[in-house]
């Protein structure tokens, strides 16, 4: 049970977002820009995968399932493929550039200072732009916030992982708007 009374029984981050809609709207706007906005040279799938990977490293069940399912939807892949990236992205069948960005995201998850010049160089060599490196760091940092918000308030999460997969198409269609929170 959540540590505080949200006045609703929505799962995960949606509980506190509806409890305090002023901050909820802003957090959703941030998620919309980082993950769903089409004006970005990183694909929606790759941005969701960065969020899912960081959430998995933070052991946040709700977030890594929501965003893993989103990546799965965009990649038109299956759950074992997404799980293989979460578990060991270096051995996964994904582009080298995405591996380089996931390595940066993994360092951010530990702490900002863990990001090395070598990691940045590697990403750049594989074609990553300043903008893409910026967005990777900010997505990873943002999930260090979202994950802590979700688990720090002890929110509940559906145990059935298929639930997240079933919702992904709707979320991809509607984006992270405040209006979609209650659905």
């Amino acid at each position, binding site marked *: 049970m959540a*540590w505080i009374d949200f006045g609703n029984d929505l799962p995960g981050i949606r509980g506190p977002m509806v409890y305090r809609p002023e901050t909820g709207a802003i957090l959703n706007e941030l998620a919309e820009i980082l993950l769903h906005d089409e004006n970005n040279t990183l694909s929606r799938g790759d941005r969701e995968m960065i969020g899912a990977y960081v959430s998995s490293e933070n052991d946040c069940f709700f977030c890594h399932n929501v965003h893993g399912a989103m990546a799965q939807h965009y990649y038109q892949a299956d759950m074992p493929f997404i799980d293989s990236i979460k578990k060991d992205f270096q051995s996964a069948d994904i582009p080298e550039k995405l591996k380089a960005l996931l390595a940066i995201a993994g360092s951010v998850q530990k702490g*900002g200072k863990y990001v090395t010049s070598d990691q940045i160089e590697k990403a750049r060599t594989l074609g990553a732009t300043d903008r893409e490196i910026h967005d990777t760091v900010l997505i990873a940092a943002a999930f260090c916030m979202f994950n802590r918000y979700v688990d720090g*308030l002890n929110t509940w999460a559906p145990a059935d992982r298929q639930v997240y997969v079933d919702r992904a198409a709707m979320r991809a269609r509607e984006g992270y708007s405040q209006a979609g929170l209650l659905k």
Partner: protein
Amino acid sequence: MPHIDLDENLPGIRALLAFSPETAKPLGELTELLLRSNEGLSPAEREMIATHVSYLNDCFYCHQSHGAIVSCYLNGDNETVNAVKRDYQAAPVSEKLKSLLTIAGKVQQSGKAVLAEDIEHAKEQGATDRDIHDTVLIAAAFCLFNRYVDGLATIAPEDLSTYPLRARQIVEKGYGNHIFLNPQPTK
């Protein structure tokens, strides 16, 4: 040197906000709501939570910046600022705030580190659901800001006398795009 090409006249997060104004908007609004609200917790107490978490995350720019803002609210009481960073149990702050700083410190480690007894203790000291919510979100948000600032290796001014100037700017005008669109304060 920063990992990406940033305006070298802007320190810390200000250079990142200028680099990415689309995301600067929600980040500025979130900070304004969380740190400047006077509901339950005062702006000074909210900044103390931000300062403590930034110190635990070893983010020099953020803990100096928010420490300077706390000092500004407390009319230059740097001793309290230092205590809030290093040993808040010894700081001259309320027992309620101490219990919330404990929760914030747990959030800094991981959301899962917060225990039922931490929450219970805070409630016994008079913390409301809203206080606990805001504490967790402030602590979580600084786990974002600290990583954003250090993850891109932004410039943190070594001259500590510049921090109170920017702090006063925040205390007087709040958070928002003015902190990177306007010239940086020099006196």
